[in-house]
């Protein structure tokens, strides 16, 4: 009630001001009150302040959530034998020239990961969690995988094939794994994005394509005769009669 009276009364702002209180009503609080500097002093301090252009910061093309960890890439690293070993494994993985796909990984339970791993294993594929984005981003520049850098930003998972199995069946498999979102990859010597991979998956096998081309080539050679022979009986009879007339005229 007293506090309310103080605030409502006309002189309350004077009551609460330290400069206008007498010795009896001062309640010394537990804080350090800094002295207010004069305007001339503040102007002088601002005028004589050091002006420095700060050095450039690392670029922000890395994900915002782990910017600090990613910006350490631009600082000098202390040589760590464990990281060197992992770097070596990553280089060997890239030099193998095996096809692999990059999928974004949403939060997933361990039992679900186990199920997905089994399903992929039955089809001859392998889930790889160990190849982190920092390792791949270090080893990619200068190689043919340089264009995959935009995919190596968020939580990722790699899918490789141990037996050289066909990657065209993967998009259908991945529809049953909603936590893994396909981004792109390196398949059969080509760097493919998601759309290109889906188109590539709709293409037929090499054997079927070869057989089709062989059939087309064979038709070109004997295409006209086969169309004549396989036509209707009436048209075939008329064509044969015309062919007889032509031969007779040539002999005559």
């Amino acid at each position, binding site marked *: 009630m007293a506090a309310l009276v103080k605030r409502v009364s006309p002189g309350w702002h004077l009551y609460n001001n330290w400069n206008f209180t007498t010795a009896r009503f001062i309640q010394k609080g537990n804080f350090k009150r800094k002295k207010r500097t004069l305007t*001339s*002093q503040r102007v*002088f*301090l601002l*005028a*004589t302040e050091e002006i*420095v*252009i700060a050095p450039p910061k690392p670029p922000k093309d890395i994900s915002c959530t782990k910017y600090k960890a990613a910006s350490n890439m631009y600082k000098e690293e202390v040589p760590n034998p464990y990281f060197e070993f*992992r770097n070596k494994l990553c280089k060997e993985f890239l030099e193998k020239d095996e096809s692999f796909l990059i999928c974004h990984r949403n939060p997933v339970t361990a039992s679900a990961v186990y199920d997905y791993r089994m399903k992929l294993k039955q089809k001859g594929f392998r889930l790889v*969690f160990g190849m982190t984005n920092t390792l791949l981003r270090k080893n990619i520049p200068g190689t043919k995988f340089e264009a995959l850098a935009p995919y190596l930003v968020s939580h990722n998972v790699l899918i490789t094939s141990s037996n050289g199995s066909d990657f065209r069946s993967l998009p259908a498999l991945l529809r049953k794994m909603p936590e893994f979102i396909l981004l792109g990859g390196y398949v059969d010597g080509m760097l493919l994005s998601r759309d290109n991979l889906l188109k590539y998956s709709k293409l037929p096998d090499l054997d079927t394509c070869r057989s089709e081309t062989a059939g087309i080539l064979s038709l070109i050679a004997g295409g006209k005769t086969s169309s004549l022979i396989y036509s209707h009986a009436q048209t075939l009879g008329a064509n044969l009669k015309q062919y007889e007339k032509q031969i007779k005229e040539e002999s005559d």
Partner: protein
Amino acid sequence: MMSVTMSTKVFLNFYNTNAAWVIKSLSKPHSYVQSAAYMKIKVAPNYDDIEIPEKKKLRMMDKVPPPVLHTASNLAVQQRSEAKYCRGPEPIHNKLNYGQYGVQALDGGYLSHKHMDAWRLYINSKLTNVMFAEWRIEPPWKPVTKKGTGKRMGKGKSSISHYVTPVKAGRILLEVGGEIEYKQVYKMLRHVAAQCPFDARIISAEILQKEAEQKNWIATNNLNPFSFRYCARNNFLGIKKDLSPYDLKWSGKY
């Protein structure tokens, strides 16, 4: 029927025990991804260069200093409360002797025996076999006088009530070292820094080095031709009227 009810009771009793809870929790799906591939092992720091002295703990400080003049009376003499002992930067004792960790004062002030005893008891209880601590300040030597309660002003200088050590800005109060890292030292020394009557901070050799490098870099890359020292000494804007002689000496920083 009786056997069925008995078995259900036994089952229910088992169901509520700790063993059953453990089995239940194992069957529930967890939210982390298990992988037995790589362990993130951190490389341990090297402590071969560190020499631990014989006396590892903080020594006890005397409340009253021993008399300097051995006279018949041996009376302690009152001193003026001179602020010169707390004013300005510390020119000598502002570096770490052992090159590890310590507490540095950011402002000037007085430290009494109460502060020192409290820190001594706390730090000595937290020290291990591979750690040591050392004072970097003198025991209290400066006498502080106090008038009794209800006494009026005048009637000469009063008698000495206690002794204090004056401290300048930048002085290192105590050092801690050994096979220890900054995080562990911070937990121990934050109480010391908080209990100081002035601003204080916990430092390491790396922090001091970085600050020195930053200071040098700013001094070399400063684009402002008007420095505080030059402008104050030459009375730019008539500022000498509002500055003290200590601002001219220490460029407005102390």
